[in-house]
């Protein structure tokens, strides 16, 4: 397959056709496309589960599903969205954009690239298949805390192996990205000239390599506890159930930055483009990202304040958590300073980026509040936390991904998307995401715990508002699919430059770019990257 591609090297727009093009692909753009399509499908699968959750919570009483199935929905929704929607979308963007942003012909390790993608459908087949097994799908929460998770039925080993496969896939993707960025940059593309999206992905890749093996270790210990008589997490056998939480969150907190750092990168590309002004504080953006990444390994126990840590431990993790707000703040200030005295226009990518800055920051605010240990004793495991992580993940990470899709769709397809429809999609998303999640702050403060299928009538009003917002948000996303399909099939021809204020190598290529992106290394000068 690839030898054939080699023979055809000269006329580089030749590509294999049909199913083979996708199955055996070693082309960064095709693999990137597959990742992105896969992630969109997963977004809708996870989204349907969210709709079931919100339907059940629409009013007090149990109407649609049993508590066990409800718990499965909560658990699998989270796993699908984190590992199936957001992470693959990030990898898909990295595949598509990194080679053409740094002036390379393709990714450094194309065959591994193919494998890291094709592992994922199998991993999710394992995970989603558990719905048809005796005992149902995993229902102990995505955090998989023992002893509860050990009560999972036949689904248990499938859950563990799905996590293993997803971890392997991510690590391969991360190695590939690091190898590409460190070895395949065009001459003149120095590290401190790298587009911020590339920088954030390099840092994310290191986080992946450092944290995924820890998760793999934790779930393997669960597996041996269940089937091979070990007692890592079993107090009766001399183990410690809290140990799992320490290991899990040592992975888990860096994981949330794995989800958000590429989003930071995207926003740092988009705002300068539409403000027609260079990114404010490029170097401090790089350093802030790196400090966030390093700090993210020292804050894990803020997820475990209520397990009963010694007070000195709680103080340490409180201080470290609050400290993370500083570099996070720097990023937000830099984005606002980039807009300041720019000449802004408000195409859809910019609208999503602006909404990201505001709504992600609101999520950061609640994060800061959650980091204050004595008050977290009240907030923990309530809807206040649910609101927090949906502000950072949905109106944060997902909004950034939407922004990136609109930003780069013309480059990928060669057509402009329908701007009018896209703006409608934006406003529906922005309004209803807030109707969906803002009231959840109130619910949490008023005392509603998370992960419950039914609730006391005092929580009824805000749950109904939230559910209505949820349905409206969910339906609005179908519009996105329509816009994407319409754009792939046709539309106004896009120029190579696409956006007036865009800077960087990707805009020097045609839209869509040639099959092997840069066959000759471009020369990168300061002027090319600058305003």
């Amino acid at each position, binding site marked *: 397959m690839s030898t054939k591609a080699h023979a055809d090297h000269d006329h580089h727009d030749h590509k294999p056709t049909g199913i083979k093009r996708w199955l055996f692909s070693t082309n960064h753009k095709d693999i990137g496309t597959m990742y992105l399509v896969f992630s969109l499908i997963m977004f809708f699968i996870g989204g349907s589960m969210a709709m079931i959750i919100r339907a059940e919570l629409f009013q007090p009483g149990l*109407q649609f599903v049993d508590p*066990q199935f409800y*718990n499965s929905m909560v658990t699998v929704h989270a796993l699908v969205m984190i590992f199936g929607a957001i992470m693959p979308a990030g990898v898909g963007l990295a595949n598509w954009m990194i080679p053409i942003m740094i002036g390379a012909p393709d990714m450094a390790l194309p065959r591994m690239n193919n494998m890291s993608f094709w592992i994922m459908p199998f991993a999710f087949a394992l995970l989603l298949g558990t719905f048809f097994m005796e005992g149902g799908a995993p229902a102990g929460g995505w955090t998989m805390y023992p002893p*509860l998770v050990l009560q999972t039925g036949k689904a248990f080993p499938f859950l563990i192996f799905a996590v293993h496969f997803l971890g392997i896939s991510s690590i391969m993707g991360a190695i590939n990205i690091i190898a590409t960025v460190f070895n395949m940059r065009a001459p003149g593309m120095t590290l401190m000239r790298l587009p911020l999206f590339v920088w954030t992905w390099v840092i994310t890749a290191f986080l992946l390599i450092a944290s995924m093996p820890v998760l793999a270790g934790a779930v393997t210990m669960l597996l041996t506890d269940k089937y091979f008589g070990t007692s890592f997490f079993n107090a009766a056998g001399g183990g410690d159930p809290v140990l799992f939480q320490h290991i899990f969150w040592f992975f888990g907190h860096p994981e949330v930055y794995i989800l958000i750092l590429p989003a930071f990168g995207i926003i740092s590309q988009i705002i300068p483009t539409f403000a027609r*002004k260079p990114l404010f504080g490029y170097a401090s953006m790089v350093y802030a990202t790196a400090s966030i990444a390093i700090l993210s390994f020292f804050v894990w126990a803020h997820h475990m304040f209520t397990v009963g840590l010694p007070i000195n431990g709680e*103080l340490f993790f409180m201080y470290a958590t609050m400290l993370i707000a500083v570099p996070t703040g720097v990023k937000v200030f830099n984005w606002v300073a980039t807009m300041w005295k720019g000449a802004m226009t408000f195409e859809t990518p910019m609208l999503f980026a*602006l909404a990201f800055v505001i709504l992600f920051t609101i999520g950061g605010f609640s994060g800061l509040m959650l980091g*204050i240990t004595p008050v977290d004793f009240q907030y923990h495991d309530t809807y206040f936390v649910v609101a927090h992580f949906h502000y950072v993940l949905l109106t944060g990470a997902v909004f950034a991904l939407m922004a990136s899709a609109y930003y780069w769709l013309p480059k990928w397809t060669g057509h402009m998307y329908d701007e009018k429809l896209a703006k409608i999609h934006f406003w529906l998303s922005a309004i209803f995401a807030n109707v969906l999640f803002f009231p959840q702050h109130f619910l949490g403060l008023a005392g509603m*715990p998370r*992960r419950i299928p039914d609730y006391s009538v005092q929580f009824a009003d805000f749950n109904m508002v939230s559910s209505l917002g949820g349905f409206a948000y969910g339906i609005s996303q179908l519009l996105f699919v329509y816009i994407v399909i319409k754009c792939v099939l046709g539309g106004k021809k896009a120029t190579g430059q696409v956006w007036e204020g865009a800077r960087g190598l990707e805009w020097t290529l045609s839209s869509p770019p040639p099959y092997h992106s840069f066959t000759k290394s471009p020369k990168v000068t300061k002027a090319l990257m600058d305003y």
Partner: protein
Amino acid sequence: MHLNKRMSKFLSNFILVLSALFLLSPDILHAAWGLNMTQGVTPISQDVYNMHMTSLYVVTVIGLLVFGMMFWSIFHHRKSKGVKPAKFSHSTTVEVIWTLVPLLIIISLAVPATKLLARMDNTSESSITIKVTGYQWKWKYDYINEDLTIYSNLATDSVEASQRNSGINPSSADNYLRNTDTALVLPVGKKIRIMTTANDVIHAWWVPDLGWKRDAIPGFINDNWTIINKEGVYRGQCAEICGKGHGYMPIVVKAVPEKEYLAWVEDTKAALKSKKDSGDKELTMDELKSKGEAVYKANCLACHQANGQGIKGVFPGLDGSPLATLKDRIPEHIHQVIYGKNNMPAFGEQLSDTDIAAVVTYERNNWGNKTGDIVQSKDVSAGRKK
């Protein structure tokens, strides 16, 4: 563009209104909509509330400043107004300022938080000790100084209304899902030590009005304390996912004057004792069945379901099961209720002989099970001795 402008304005107003909501007097917030954290009824809960409000004010002010700058920029620095973009791309001075100022703000939050945490940590000098044990899905309370143990289940009217498509309006149940059959009774004004642990999986014991929650972890004991200043009934529920009944294990704390508390302890002890003693009495089928139904709803229904079908692959059904229908397996049936089996907990400790006799009789004579078997408390006490 026109629409766009109006919508951005709407968005900014929306955010302003929401922030204003928060800045309103806490009392209004509290009374009207259940929007905010409770101030609670302990010295700690009051401090926690104050810390919460302080951090909320801080982030609201920062938010208004940052978003204000941003919206100013959005309205004035737009291409449609013919502005030429500036060229600047960094300023060491402002970058240092906006690193240091947040750092100072954070330190100013961390200092009171540290003091508060230290105060919460001090469990010494308590006069009463309660050990709370989480079970799937109920709470056990041991009054350590009194040699008194009570179990607390979801109240029966909530159990009934919470069945899927029960047709019962949740509002008709007394404090739906937040009411129990037995409350944890505590005296006001005393320092009470509350230890949390669990029997099976991790739970978390949470009554918002006390100002904290704490995990209940099998094999470990966590130490906490409280002083309740005001008489009243305070409600909460389990806050750590613990399986399918997680939403159905509420907590009710009843705070009463010390005299009343002491009287309650004596009465409860006496009641438990007489329940044990009256165990030898023979009951009729109808008496056993109606008592058994109540016991079943409180203890068995969560797994084996109202219709006795259980949940396929997880909890076996009782309707038509050999254990609950074959005559020669009656002792085994009793044994399993007393001592549990695999994932089924042991009920021998929390249910009296009469309760167990009643629920076994009920299970053998309900749904399609029409065995006519009657189990009396003496059969259960015989089963215990084995």
